[in-house]
């Protein structure tokens, strides 16, 4: 089912993020074929031109590669996927830290809080 889009971010970038997240979660495996532009467009109710732009963007960053007449495939290069995973981690940390700073928490408080949280969480499991 089509998810809704954040109104202030270009749709092609939001589609990029969704595909990257799927790859990181392993829902789309390495070397696996992405849906065709049309299927992806129908599935998410967006303009096929937008999906094309998304695929081009992913291609430019090496995450997918187009094979002539066969479709678009996720890379099998583990370094690119590792890099993508790393970037995603950093971007989430950046968001977390900037929001915590805005509320006035110090680095020590953040680290201690994070450690406490993870410790109790792990005890729970």
């Amino acid at each position, binding site marked *: 089912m*089509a998810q809704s*889009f954040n*109104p*202030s*971010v*270009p*749709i*092609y970038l939001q589609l990029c993020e969704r595909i990257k997240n799927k790859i990181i979660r392993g829902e789309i495996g390495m070397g696996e074929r992405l849906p065709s532009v*049309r299927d992806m*467009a*129908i599935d*998410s*109710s*967006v*303009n*096929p*031109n*937008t999906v094309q*732009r998304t695929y081009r963007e992913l291609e430019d960053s090496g995450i997918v590669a187009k094979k002539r007449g066969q479709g678009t495939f996720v890379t099998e290069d583990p370094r690119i996927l590792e890099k993508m995973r790393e970037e995603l981690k950093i971007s989430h940390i950046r968001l977390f830290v900037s929001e915590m700073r805005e509320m006035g928490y110090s680095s020590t408080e953040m680290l201690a809080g994070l450690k406490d949280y993870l410790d109790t969480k792990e005890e729970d499991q």
Partner: protein
Amino acid sequence: MIQLEGVTKRYLTKKALDGISLQIEPGHIVGLIGSNGSGKSTTLKLIAGLLRPTRGTVLVDGEIANRRICRKVAYLSELDTYYSFFTVKQTVDLYEQTFIDFNRKKAEEMLDFMKLDRSQKVKHLSKGNRGRLKIVVTLAREVPFILMDEPLSGLDPMVRSSIIKGLISFIDLEKQTVILTTHELQEIEPLLDTVILIKNGVILERESVEDIRCNENLSLVDWMVEKYEQ
């Protein structure tokens, strides 16, 4: 390509369009948006050759848009324009006989996609299914330009969603261009390449939808309200 040059359209004393110039490149889905009475439908009818401009020229692929331009343009009216005593199948038959570019196979696929019962009479169809049938007979034509006047208006969310999905599935943007008018901006936004904003018969803005999000951080609805109030 569609070209309007200095087009004015007057209905008796009322000016519906006031000297607009416009170019629409092929391969896009274009939304014509604006308040009621702003001139959206008039613009579509001029391109479809159903109206003549009071002044200026309307060209479709270099040809003057008159009644014969329907060879290149499929036009979906906001009104119900078929015979209510026909069945769904007879309606499709009629379109097939009327237009040589009508692709019967595509129409049949779309009837299945839209889950329309071929033996039902048009007058017994729900408003939603009449909306779906209109889409089927319009999109089954293999013409370079498809014009749709309010394809979503007054329909429930399920019908709107099936029409949007039908549009994406059955339009070939490598060969076709779509121009539609709508007030359902939120739903149609992900589908559009470009929007053209009309107010009081004048074009206020023309912008790529992704650019509006990217440069102005606005959804289409907010953008339209902002431009209208300026």
